[in-house]
């Protein structure tokens, strides 16, 4: 075997078998779905109607074709959802003959098991109904659309992330994850969160949506909407508690980069009304999607880390 210290040469060899980065990411995600199908009894896909969960479902449909997806869907409904997104969810469930479980934040508030926060934000309230649904349905693997590029607490998340009987994540006691060997062993009462999109970035997700011609809820594309400003973000006026006094609604051309609870998910000014325009906008963007559109992550430097420890998505 000869080794020579070489100065690098500029031209890379063309390899006819090279995969594009989207093909490589797709192959990895499909492998993850199939590992879970092979090793777990009762997996479920968290499905919010947001683009990441839509891409997850699309990958699952491809992974098991021509058979149907061997998992149910679970939606944690904050009660403040965009109507366009709920309609999309229901269409999708019918089209693919899927089973849908809904965990309702509103029901937990109505029965006194959860209390509304003073700021009206319901994203942090999702953890309790989520964990309740996991426990009562005995889900042992829960697919989430979280990506490591989203946030620094997510950058250290595993693809297979063990949660204890309280649903808690302990970043210091994670299993090392090597090669593509995922360790899904867990005790009764524990479950594993699985993140097939771990290695995708926001741009990858959009490029994949474009390539696969995946339909999204229309609020992802530029449209006119009555919004008002709070904490530097454009929020949609609505029953959930806005605008308050001193906040003036106005009609603007906006789109959503993420889809979550209406109370803390902001729209961005945009005229990107096609997929190509959205990709061009993201490629040129100077803000991360969470920084631009999520009030819940602006609360403190470690907001996501704290919520993840408690069992959040």
């Amino acid at each position: 075997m000869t080794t020579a210290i070489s100065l690098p040469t500029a031209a890379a060899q063309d390899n006819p078998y090279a995969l594009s980065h989207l093909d490589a990411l797709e192959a990895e995600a499909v492998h993850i779905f199939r590992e879970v199908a092979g090793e777990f009894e009762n997996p479920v896909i968290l499905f919010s109607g947001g683009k990441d969960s839509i891409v997850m479902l699309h990958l699952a449909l491809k992974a098991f074709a021509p058979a149907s997806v061997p998992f149910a869907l679970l939606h944690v409904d904050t009660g403040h959802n965009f109507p366009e997104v709920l309609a999309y969810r229901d269409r999708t469930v019918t089209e693919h003959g899927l089973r849908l479980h809904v965990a309702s934040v509103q029901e937990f508030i109505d029965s006194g098991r959860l209390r509304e926060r003073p700021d009206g934000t319901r994203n942090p309230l999702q953890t309790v109904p989520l964990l309740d649904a996991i426990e009562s349905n005995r889900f042992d693997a829960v697919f989430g659309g979280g990506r490591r590029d989203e946030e620094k607490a997510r950058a250290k998340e595993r693809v297979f992330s063990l949660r204890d009987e309280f649903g808690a994540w302990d970043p210091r006691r994670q299993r090392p994850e090597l090669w593509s060997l995922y360790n899904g062993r867990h005790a009764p009462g524990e479950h594993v969160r699985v993140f097939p999109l771990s290695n995708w970035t926001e741009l990858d997700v959009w490029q994949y949506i474009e390539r696969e011609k995946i339909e999204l809820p229309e609020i992802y594309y530029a449209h006119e909407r009555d919004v008002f400003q709070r904490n530097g973000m454009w929020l949609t006026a609505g029953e959930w508690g806005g605008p308050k006094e001193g906040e003036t609604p106005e009609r603007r051309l906006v789109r959503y980069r993420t889809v979550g609870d209406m109370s803390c998910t902001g729209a961005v000014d945009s005229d990107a009304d096609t997929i190509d325009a959205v990709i061009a906008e993201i490629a040129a963007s100077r803000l991360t999607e969470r920084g631009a559109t999520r009030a819940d992550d602006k609360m403190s430097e470690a907001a996501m880390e704290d919520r993840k420890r408690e069992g959040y998505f």
Partner: protein
Amino acid sequence: MTSTTQADSLTASELAATSLLRFATAGSVDDGKSTLVGRLLHDSKSVLADQLEAVEHASRKRGQEAPDLALLTDGLRAEREQGITIDVAYRYFATPRRRFILADTPGHVQYTRNMVTGASTAELAVVLVDARNGVVEQTRRHAAVAALLRVPHVVLAVNKMDLVDYAEPVFAAIAEEFGAYAASLGVRDVTAIPISALAGDNVVEPSANMDWYGGPTLLEHLETVPVGSDPSEEPARFPVQYVIRPQSAEHPDYRGYAGQLASGVLRTGDQVTVLPAGITTTVAGIDVLGEERDIAWAPQSVTVRLAEDIDISRGDLIAAGPAPEPTQDVVATVAHLAERPLRVGDKVLLKHTTRTVRAIVKDIPYAISVDTLEQVERPGSLNVNDLGRVVLRTAEPLALDDYRSNRRTGSFLLIDQADGTTLTAGMAGEAF
């Protein structure tokens, strides 16, 4: 995240056609690794305004005037409070030519475990040295881990060239010493690049201070190094993950084996052997995520249909070309990852590709010092971060390849039967 400067002018389809490089960085505490990673992210325009703002804010709080690029790679609150990095962090950046996944491995605490983890999926490892110190013990350790994990390409980044007056002889001597050491470990491709992460020389932009260096910058090298091996030169290996049987009106008799090609090329009509049973049959068809094709190659995820109706389930290996002989006696080089030691006599689970079997540790012939590569005979047990040689007996036969010829079908994990802890990373065959 992507580079905005050049990406703006590219169309969506051009952006989507780039390849993916997974690489790892390793360096000891003061080699400037965090600064280098911060520089790569910052200068490739992958750092977005809100992230930079957060770093500026944190730097001011600590009384620093300039934004500390090292803070860009800072992770969890637990780490910030202790000023250390606990874990491998994954970073994402892109240029118009390539998408990058960087496994950023800390140099100090639990160094071997983290670097082994980061290197296991890497196609390239950047080993950082301080030009003033040259090759030190940690450099040898990083080279040894990269060699052990069979990372195909190694880059020696000789950092802090600004502190040695950008002197070529300093660089040349370090490059030569490292090259000789890496060669003795069996590393095939080593590239040395003189840089200053702090000043930005040869990281993204070419240095104006080192005319004597004619090669590309670190980023240019990362953009052009060949990705992946040539599957047409490897025997096909296809671990079965899941059996797809729709049993629907449309597909009453469909039976496909779902998996990801670990190596090689499969074509319709190929003769294959199903292991460990040893049954031979032919490929009747290949479905690539719902579309029928007559060829597939690593690392595609596909579904394979076979000509004969034979009993195949998760854990079996469909192999073409020279096939491994299934065995219950596994000899391997291992890296021990868990706090609890691995002892002779331990009963464990062994996870190899899609197959998990019971196994017993029959012998630990020696431990390997990762710094000197000396062997310590019969240590009795391996502790966290130890490398060693292990002899295992498994309850069922495994179709293992030699790790040197196949990273995916030559690797395995040992798992605690009781609580599921990942104990040990194993590589079948000789170490170096």
